[in-house]
C-alpha cells in the first residue's frame, strides 16, 4: 500500500466516511451482469446450500438444497443453476464481430494475419467476496469431470445433462479471475476496495457489509459505527443483522435455525416414505412442502441482504466514469471468452486437474504481463493512481519551459528535439533513462539528458515524430504544456516465447506422455459422497 492510500485510510478514520482511491472506474462493468450469491454447507467440501442468481436486482432466482447431504437434491440444484447461468453465457456466444489474430503458418513458419470471430460482448459474473470467487472455482472443479448418462451409460451416479458444461464455464471464469485486471468474474469487495479506502484494515474490508457501511454511509452515523453493527450486530434471537456474504454461513444461524429446520424436513420425508395409503401420503406430502418452504425462507433470509449489497456496490461503481483503457482490457476478456467458447464447440476435453509445465508457465507469464500492464494503464487513466507513482519517483508531471529543435547525426537526420521541463516531483532519473508519455493513446519515448543548475530537466524526444526531417504536427510538445511522464513502459513487452507442449524440456517432465491416465476420468464416487 502506498503512502497515499494509507493517508486516504487515515482521512477515512477522521471523517468517518470512505475516501476515494480512484477518480475513474478501473474495471469493466457490464450493462447486464449476472450476480451469483452462493451459500455452502459448513464443513462440507463444496456441498452447496443455496444461491441467489440472476441479472435483475428485483427478481433473483432462489435455489435451495433442503438437505445438503442428499445427492439427488444437490444435482437438482446444480441443474437449476445451469439453467440460470448457461442461457446467460450462451446469449453472448452468437453475437460476433470480425477480428484479426496473428498465427504462425505451419508450413512456412511465418506470422500471418488470420480473420477470426470475436464475441462482441462477454458475460460478467459478480459474486460478493473473494471467498465467492474461490467457491465458483470449487463448484467448477466439482462439476467438470462429472459424467452424464448420455456420455457414459455405466456411470453410477449420472449428473444432469448440462452440469459438466456449467463446470467447465465456472472453471474458466475462476481461472480468468486470476488474471490481474480481468473482469469476467469479479467480487463486490474487490471492486469496492479498489476504488475506496475505509477507516479499517484490509482484513476487515473483506466483510462486504462492513465495507459498504463505510462507503455508503449517510446520516449522522459514522462509517465505523455502521460497520461495527454490520460486523457484530445481532437481533434478540442471536442472529446477525447483516449475515455473512458467504459462502460460509454464521454458526449461530446453522445451529439455532437451519439445523432444526433440516431435521423437520428429514422427518417429514421419512414420514412420507412410510405412508400407508393415499390419503395419509397427501397429508404428509403437504407437511414435507411446509418443511421445505421453511428452509427456503431461512436461506433466503441469509442471502437477500448480500444480494442487495452486491447490486448496491454495482450501482456505486457505475457512478464513476470508466477509465479510458478499461475497454482495452475488456477486449482481452472477450478474447478469453471467445477462446473458451471455441474449445467447447470443438469438443475439447474439460480443463485438466493440473496444468502441464508449459501451460502453467504460459499462465504465469500472462498474469505477470497483465499485472504490469494493469499498473501502467491505471496510472495513465487516473491522476490519483499516477500520484502514487509520482511519490515513488516512477513518474513526474512537468511543465515545458523551452523547446529546442535538434537532429540526429546520421545520413538522413531525424528530429531529436530537446525539451527543458520543470517539475516539483523527484523522479529517479539517470543519464539515458527512458521516459514515456501518452500521445493520442500511444507511448512516445524520450530520454533524460541532464539536470540544469536551476533544477529543470532536459529530455530528448526520440520517436513518433514521423519520417520526414520536420516533426509531424502535434508530435512535439509546446512551451507551457503540462505533461505526465512515466519511467515505466506503457505496453509491457512480451517475454521470450515459451515452447509448444510437445517440446516441453526434460527438466520440466518432458513432453506429455500419451500413456498417462486419461485426464478426463471422473472423480471416484462413494455412496456417502458429498458432491
Amino acid at each position, binding site marked *: *500500500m*502506498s*503512502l*497515499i492510500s*494509507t*493517508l*486516504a*485510510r*487515515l*482521512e477515512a*478514520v*477522521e471523517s468517518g466516511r470512505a475516501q*476515494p482511491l480512484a*477518480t475513474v472506474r478501473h474495471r469493466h462493468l457490464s450493462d447486464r451482469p449476472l450476480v451469483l450469491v452462493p451459500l455452502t*454447507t*459448513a*464443513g*462440507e*467440501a*463444496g456441498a452447496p446450500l443455496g444461491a441467489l442468481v440472476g441479472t435483475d436486482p428485483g427478481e433473483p432466482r432462489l435455489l435451495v438444497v433442503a438437505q*445438503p447431504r442428499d445427492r439427488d437434491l444437490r444435482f437438482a440444484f446444480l441443474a437449476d443453476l445451469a439453467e440460470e447461468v448457461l442461457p446467460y453465457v450462451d446469449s453472448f456466444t452468437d453475437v460476433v464481430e470480425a477480428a484479426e489474430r496473428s498465427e504462425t503458418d505451419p508450413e512456412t513458419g511465418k506470422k500471418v494475419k488470420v480473420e477470426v470471430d470475436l464475441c462482441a460482448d462477454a458475460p460478467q459474473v459478480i459474486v460478493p467476496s473473494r471467498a465467492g470467487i474461490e467457491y465458483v472455482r*470449487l463448484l467448477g*472443479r*466439482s462439476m467438470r469431470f462429472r459424467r452424464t448418462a448420455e456420455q457414459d451409460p455405466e456411470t453410477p451416479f449420472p449428473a444432469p445433462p448440462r452440469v459438466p458444461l456449467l463446470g467447465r464455464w465456472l472453471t474458466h471464469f475462476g481461472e480468468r479471475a486470476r488474471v490481474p485486471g480481468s473482469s469476467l468474474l469479479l467480487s463486490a469487495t474487490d471492486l469496492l476496495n479498489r476504488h475506496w479506502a475505509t*477507516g*479499517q*484494515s*484490509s*482484513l*476487515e474490508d473483506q466483510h462486504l457489509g462492513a465495507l459498504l457501511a463505510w462507503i455508503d454511509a449517510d446520516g449522522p452515523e459514522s462509517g*465505523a459505527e455502521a460497520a461495527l453493527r454490520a*460486523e*457484530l450486530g445481532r437481533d434478540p434471537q442471536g442472529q446477525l443483522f447483516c449475515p455473512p456474504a458467504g459462502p460460509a*454461513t454464521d*454458526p*449461530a444461524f*446453522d*445451529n439455532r435455525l437451519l*439445523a432444526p429446520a433440516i431435521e423437520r424436513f428429514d422427518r417429514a420425508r421419512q414420514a412420507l416414505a412410510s405412508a400407508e395409503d393415499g390419503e395419509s401420503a397427501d397429508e404428509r406430502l403437504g407437511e414435507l412442502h411446509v418443511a421445505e418452504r421453511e428452509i427456503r425462507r431461512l436461506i433466503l433470509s441469509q442471502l437477500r441482504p448480500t444480494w442487495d449489497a452486491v447490486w448496491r456496490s454495482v450501482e456505486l461503481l457505475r457512478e464513476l466514469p470508466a477509465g479510458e483503457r478499461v475497454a482495452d482490457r475488456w477486449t482481452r476478456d472477450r478474447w478469453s471468452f471467445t477462446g473458451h467458447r471455441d474449445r467447447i464447440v470443438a469438443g475439447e476435453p474439460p480443463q485438466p*486437474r*493440473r496444468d502441464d509445465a508449459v501451460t502453467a508457465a504460459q499462465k504465469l507469464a500472462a498474469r505477470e504481463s497483465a499485472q504490469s500492464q494493469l499498473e501502467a494503464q491505471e496510472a495513465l487513466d*487516473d*491522476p*490519483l493512481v*499516477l*500520484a*502514487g507513482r*509520482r*511519490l515513488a519517483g516512477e513518474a513526474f508531471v512537468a511543465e515545458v519551459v523551452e523547446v529546442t529543435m535538434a537532429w540526429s547525426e546520421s545520413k538522413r537526420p531525424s528530429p531529436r528535439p530537446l525539451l527543458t521541463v520543470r517539475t516539483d516531483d523527484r523522479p529517479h532519473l539517470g543519464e539515458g533513462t527512458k521516459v514515456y508519455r501518452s500521445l493520442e493513446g500511444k507511448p512516445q519515448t524520450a530520454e533524460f539528458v541532464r539536470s540544469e543548475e536551476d533544477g529543470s530537466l532536459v529530455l530528448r524526444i526520440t520517436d513518433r515524430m514521423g519520417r520526414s526531417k520536420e516533426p509531424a504536427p502535434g508530435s512535439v510538445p509546446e512551451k507551457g504544456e503540462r505533461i505526465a511522464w512515466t519511467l515505466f513502459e506503457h505496453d509491457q513487452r512480451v517475454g521470450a516465447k515459451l515452447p509448444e507442449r510437445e517440446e516441453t524440456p526434460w527438466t520440466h517432465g518432458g513432453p506429455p506422455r500419451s500413456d498417462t491416465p486419461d485426464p478426463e476420468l471422473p*472423480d*471416484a*464416487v*462413494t455412496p*456417502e*459422497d*458429498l*458432491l
Partner: protein
Amino acid sequence: MPHPLDARALAALAANPGCRRRALLDGAGVDKTALASKLGSPAAFGQSQFAFMRGNAFEAKVKADGGRELLRLLGIAEPGTVRVPELAAAGPEGRVARTALALREATEAGTWALLDHPLLSLEVAGSPAHLEPDAVVVHPDGRWTVVEIKSFPMIDGAADASKVGAAARQSAVYVLALERVAALTRGAEVAHSVLLVCPKDFSNLPTASVVDVRKQLSVTRRQLARLTRIEEIAAALPDGVTFDVEGCSARELEAAVESVPHAYAPECLSACELAFHCRERARGAGAVEALGRSVRGELGGLTTVGDVLAAARGEEGDADDPTVEALRRAAALRAEALACR
C-alpha cells in the same frame, strides 16, 4: 477454576508474541471468552454443528478397522498386528499417565500401535496444559508420529494453505509435548513431520500428506520459553489486580485488563477472544496499528491518526523528518489529483 490452555491457544500465541495481555491472560488460565462477554465485546467464534458432525464422522472413518486405514495412509500395507491400547482413565492426570505408559509399552513391543486421542501435558508458565492430539502412531522402530485429522478437503492433492498452516502450528505443539514423554522413554524418538489426513476431493475418502513442522516447532518452542517470563509482566501490575470473571464487576475487570498493555493488530480478530475489546481501545486511542501492521511500519515515529494527519497538513511535525516530509508530499499529490476530478 483456571481455564486450561489447549493446542489452538498455544499455537495462536505464536501469531502475536508481543502481546503481554494475551500472554498473561493465557498463562493465568483466564477464560477469555467469558471475559470478553463480560466486557461487552463478545468473541464471534463458534462452530456450526454441521461442521462438527462431519468432522467427527470423518475422524471415525479414518480410525476404522483398528487403525489399519490410518497405517495405509502412512504407506504401510501389511502392518501385522496393530495395538490399539485402551487409554481411558480417571481425570486428566490419570489419562496423561496412562498415555505415557501406553507409549512406553508400545515402543518396547516393537510393533505398530495407534493411540486414539492420547492426552499429553505440557508445562506452560508454571501451570500444566492438557493437549489431546487426534492420534499418535508408534512405529516398530520406536518413532512416534502425530496424526492430525481435519475435515477440509485436499483437492487434486492441494489443500487451503492457511488451513494447512494452522494445522501445522497446532501439530507442532503436540510434537513438543510428546518430546517431553519421549525424553523419558528409552528408544523413542518423535518425528518432526506429522501426518495430515483430509478428505480427498469431494468424497469422504481419506487421503494424507506428510507435513514438515520443524519451523513451527522452533517458533512454538521459542514462544513457550518466552511465556515463562509472565512473572515479570505480573510483577509490573499494580497490587490487587484480579481477573476473577465470576466475582468482579465489568468495571473492575475492565480496569484490570487495561492494566496490562495489549498489542492489537487486525490479525488478532481471527485468533483472540478479546480482539474486539482491544480493537475498540486501539481505535479509541487513534492507534495506527488498528489499520494494519504494515501501516504502522510506513509511518515512522508517528503512532496516532491525529499526529499523522496533523503532520501531513503541515500543522505539526518536523519538516526535516523524512516521514513527515514524505507525508506532506503525499498529501499534496493526493490533493492535486483529487482537485482535477
